[in-house]
């Protein structure tokens, strides 16, 4: 059983992967900007309140950076591979 008349189906079946790639890149880019904003906010909060390292503040900061780098890598992978 398959549903045919959707726009997505036509896009995929006609083989125009470029649209999908473009949509993915836009989504990833917007998401990367959002995460960058979040990381900036965290840095700003760390200047407002100084928590000790054992409280997990360092973990969150490192995680924010790693997470941003992961999204950037996925963005690059999408450009290169797909």
């Amino acid at each position, binding site marked *: *059983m*398959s*549903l045919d008349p*959707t726009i*997505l*189906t036509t896009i*995929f*079946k006609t083989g125009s*992967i470029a649209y*999908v*790639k473009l949509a*993915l890149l836009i*989504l*990833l880019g917007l*998401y990367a900007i959002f*995460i960058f*904003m*979040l990381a900036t*906010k*965290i840095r*700003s*909060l760390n*200047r*407002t*309140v*100084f*928590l*000790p390292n*054992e*409280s*997990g*503040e360092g*973990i*969150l900061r490192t*995680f*924010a950076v790693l*997470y941003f780098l*992961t*999204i950037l890598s*996925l963005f690059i*992978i*999408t450009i290169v*591979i*797909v």
Partner: protein
Amino acid sequence: MPDIFSKNQLNTTAPQPKIVSTTSEQTVLKPIHLFTTYCQNPRGISFAEQENDETIILFLRRDFITNTPWIIATVALIFIPSLIRFIFVSTNFSLFSLPETISLILLGFYYIIVVGFVFANLSSWFYNIGLITNKRGVDIDFINLATINVATSSLPDIKDAEYTQAGFAQSFFDYGDVRLRIEATGEVFVFEKVPRPTEVAGILSKLIGRQTA
């Protein structure tokens, strides 16, 4: 001539003076961990506008149990792709077919969003901090991941402290809202969903009493 200093010098083991201190003066500083939601006399924490003679008496965060909804949502989100795949395979249903590379990247993107959801919720909880010092109350809010709101109120300005525990969950897990009414403006300063609201309100009442006395 009497020999004053030579007699029984070896046997005189004078008892060590006992350090007597009242409980209010003796403070044991406690460390803060990742999941600390309530800490009296926290160690190693300070804030930007803290004065030299200002000590933090109470460190507060939302009770950890308030994180349950997003933790459950995360677990559900983790299993959704597998569930959809299982349903599609078992019913032999296909909406559209994607190349392997695109489906992998889409799946990767989906899980990155799930991790982002966890990260956003965790950081929102982690940075919603309430501090009570010997001079003021400080409420740091990280609202909707976009707004940072820092509110302070000096203790002499606070009229009274009250708490509310509404509903079964708040009574069962012992958390609630602590409200501080500010005398001059009539505004209310709220520490939301903090653990042990009775103790928090009690400590605040004592501090307000000390300030007014």
